[in-house]
Structure formats: structure tokens, C-alpha cells
């Protein structure tokens, strides 16, 4: 029911985006010493969110229908970080990754706060108050 409201959809989308980005960043940090590993990132939320909305999703109304492929996996696009390459071919920079992690945290905080606030507004409008 709440999916229909744009604000909930957007806040939910941002929360999901931050958790998948967090996963990618954790992968980069874990592989910070792996020879030949190239740092990965995912496209900015503004791009992925719009892309999700414009694309008409596959509708599955019966069990036999082809389901929409998992959106999360298509999300992750290989983006080389502009950092320097180590002699062993690794392009992960711990500092950049830490910065991205802080960014993810702010985004998730924002998404959840917006969600929570919208929820209490909705409750208020239903007459239940806080």
C-alpha cells in the first residue's frame, strides 16, 4: 500500500541502494591487497533510480511467467576508481573507500529518517498521532 506513495518508494530505493553500495565497498576493502583486483563501484542513485522507473518491469501474473531478473546484480557496474594503480595491478585506495563508506552511511541515515518521518505524517493523517 505504501509503495504507491512516491516518497516511500524513493526512501526505500535509497536505503536499498546504500546497502548494495556498502556491500561493494566492503568487497573493495577486503580485496585491498589482492593482486590484479580492480576497485568497483555502482552508478549514482540518481541514475539507477530513474532507470528503474523508466523501464517497464516484467509483469509476472502466474507462476510460470519469466520473472524480472534480480535488479541488484544489474545495478553493479564496473567503474574503475581514479586512484593510482599499485605495482601488483590493484586499484583500491583505502582512503577513497572510507570516504565512500561515510557517504553511504549519510545516505542510509537520510533515507531512513525520511521514511520514518513520512510514516509518522501518515499516521497523523490517519488520526492516530504519534
Amino acid at each position, binding site marked *: 500500500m505504501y509503495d504507491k506513495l512516491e516518497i516511500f518508494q524513493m526512501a526505500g530505493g535509497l*536505503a*536499498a541502494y*546504500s*546497502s*548494495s553500495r*556498502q*556491500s561493494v*565497498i*566492503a*568487497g573493495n*576493502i*577486503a*580485496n*585491498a*591487497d*589482492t*593482486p590484479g*583486483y580492480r576497485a568497483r563501484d555502482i552508478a549514482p542513485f540518481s541514475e539507477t533510480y530513474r532507470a528503474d522507473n523508466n523501464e517497464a518491469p516484467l509483469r509476472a501474473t502466474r507462476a510460470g511467467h519469466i520473472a524480472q531478473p534480480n535488479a*541488484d546484480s544489474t545495478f553493479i557496474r564496473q567503474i574503475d576508481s581514479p586512484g593510482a594503480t599499485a605495482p601488483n595491478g590493484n586499484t583500491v585506495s*583505502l582512503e577513497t*573507500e*572510507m570516504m565512500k*563508506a561515510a557517504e*553511504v*552511511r549519510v545516505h*542510509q*541515515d537520510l533515507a*531512513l529518517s525520511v*521514511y*520514518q518521518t513520512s*510514516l509518522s505524517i501518515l499516521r497523523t493523517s490517519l488520526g492516530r498521532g504519534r
Partner: protein
Amino acid sequence: MSDMFQTLAVSASGMKAQATRLRHVSENIANADTPGYRRKTMGFQQTMEAGRATGLVETGRVQLDQRELPKIFDPSHPLADENGNYDGSNVDLVVEIADAREAQRSYEANLRMFDQARQMSTRLLELLRR
């Protein structure tokens, strides 16, 4: 939510790999004065599952540093040859300590990612508590 668990798994694998690296470094340091000891080195690699990289990291094979062992002149040493020399170990303490520092730094980065993922999921679950 599955992204969060993936993040935790990836960070844990990174911490495990760094801890193994630190163990080898400490073995090297402990044996810095053992005659004929060759320095142990190891690399990291991505964990593969069914031919695909899972994003997790693991330690590769342990290899021995094939650099020449230094000749140490000490005629009173039980292992000394007819010229009074014996093979020392090729451990360089400066290199080992630098390696230990790097391992520590990477471990901390992984730990921070782990902690952040945990906090993010806690924050998400708090939405349900209200």
C-alpha cells in the same frame, strides 16, 4: 537485507585473511635468527565459486622467499662450515614490521566496514520497533 549479510561475510573474510598474513609475519619475525630459515610470503586471491568471483577474499599458497641466505661468519657456531660461515635467515625485520603495520591497517578498515554494516542493519530494524 541480504546485502548486509553479504557485507558482513566479505568483511569477515578480509579480517581472516589479514589475520593469517599477520600470523606469517610473526612467524618470520620469531625466526629472524634461525639459521637457514627462509622467509614465508603469501598473496591474497579472490574466492572463486563455480568459476565466478564471490567478492570474498582468501589467502593463497604460502611460498618461501628464494632470495639467497646471508653467510654469517662465526667459527664457534655448531653449524659453521670449514670456512667458519653458516647460513643465516633471509628475514628483513624492517620489511616484516612494515608488512605487519599494513596488515593491521587493512584489518582495521575491514573491521570498520563490518561495524558499519551492523549499525546500518540495526538502524533499519529500528523502523520496525516503533
